[in-house]
């Protein structure tokens, strides 16, 4: 088995007196989908943001390709590899198309090829009819789909999804599960924090419960074999 992309060790995060996170080990591995569940305020968002390099932990070590370093040292590497999807995604004050193109346009790619990719991704998300609308005027579920499309089009090594299916209708949720499954099978590492356990346990390779700052492995309800198509709506 390949070593994990990132192995986080001894992650702690405090807010005032309260120790929110105190995690011994957390692995982010290629082609593995990890589901994190837990009560409101358990620290799921905080953990995903630490893993994405957006929130500074009080202490943490990160092992990158067998080299262990501090989180601060690893931060730049992490940020290059991980794309984080906000629990309440922010729509940039511009068109849906440009929102989705944002990540691609940061790199030197020909405009034509960018907008081809964007058009395709929008078709997948059934958002093509909204391409030229300002993303701020969309409905809740439409926004959520724009955000997911905007994150995945960058094609990062790791995708950290914070409640990716909130506000989505049934069909979108199914496509999201399918997409995650596909991306995972293509080798992407996927982290999902969600209360939608019924939806995500079938595709997750690991399922952790965040409880009192610790990650506890949950035995998945039924272990899926790779490549299965999800057509039945769970939950």
């Amino acid at each position, binding site marked *: 088995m390949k070593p994990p992309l990132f192995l986080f060790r001894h992650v702690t995060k405090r807010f005032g007196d309260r120790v929110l996170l105190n995690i011994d080990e957390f692995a982010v591995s290629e082609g593995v989908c990890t589901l994190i569940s837990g009560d409101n305020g358990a620290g799921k968002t905080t953990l995903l943001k630490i893993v994405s390099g*957006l929130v500074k932990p009080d202490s943490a070590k990160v092992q990158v390709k067998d080299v262990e370093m501090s989180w601060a040292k690893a931060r730049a590497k992490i940020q290059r590899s991980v794309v984080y999807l*906000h629990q309440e995604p922010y729509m*940039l004050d511009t*068109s849906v198309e440009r929102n989705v193109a*944002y990540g691609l346009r940061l*790199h030197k790619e020909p405009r034509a090829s960018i907008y081809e990719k964007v058009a395709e991704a929008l078709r997948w998300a059934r958002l093509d009819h909204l391409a030229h609308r300002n993303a701020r005027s969309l409905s809740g579920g439409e926004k959520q789909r724009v955000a997911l499309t905007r*994150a995945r089009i960058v094609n990062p090594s790791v995708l950290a999804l914070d409640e990716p299916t909130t506000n989505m209708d049934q069909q979108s949720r199914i496509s999201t599960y399918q997409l995650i499954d596909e991306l995972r099978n293509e080798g992407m590492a996927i982290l999902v924090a969600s209360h939608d356990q019924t939806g995500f346990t079938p595709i997750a390779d690991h399922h952790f419960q965040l409880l009192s700052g610790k990650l506890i492995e949950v035995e998945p309800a039924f272990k899926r074999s790779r490549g299965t198509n999800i057509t039945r709506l769970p939950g």
Partner: protein
Amino acid sequence: MESLTDASLKALSLLVSGDAELWAIISISFGVSLQAILYTTPVALLTAYALAHFDFPGRRTLVSLFHTLLAVPAVVVGLTLYLILSRSGPFGDLKLLFTQTAMVLGQMALSFPILVAMGHSALQSADQRVWETAHTLGATPLRAMFTVMHEVRYGLFAAVIAAFGRIIAEVGCSMMVGGNILNYTRNITTAIALETSKGQFAQGIALGIVLLVLALVLNYSLSTLRHRLAMQA
């Protein structure tokens, strides 16, 4: 003593028959102030962004300081610059006193705090998620900054407009370091001051109306442009 109506009518008739001298004055005003705002804006917005985005000791004091600098009279800025540029001052050899360059420098100093203060207030109101979104999607810190600025562009726009208003309307500094030399450093406001000191109120108001009309044209075109861009986005 001429009445307000008389003065306004005279002013308007003066407006219609624009002559070369008037246009020299106008072009000096706008030339100097546009240059000043052009040079100051990038640095000021960078400063404002740093104050809004990075947490460092003394940050709050620094913000207070910039707010305070808004209360520095133009003439004090002018006076200080005068003493620096005077032949008896440290940079006297540059022979910049009573030149347009000196006026530009003075107006840059005047516009800096207002751009920083207003820009900071706009940037501070930006959602933390803008930066996070930009960053996680692969933006460099610089690109992320531009994205944040784009999200609060109306606030930044208002800051630039306010700063431009401040310097095109100021007289103390231009008078002091420009010297109000005809066809060379006389701008609209120093000309107004001169006319006023001569008791030529009609001419003073006429120049004020000229300034107002030109500023209105400028603002309205900018606002229309902004509106169009917003429609497109």
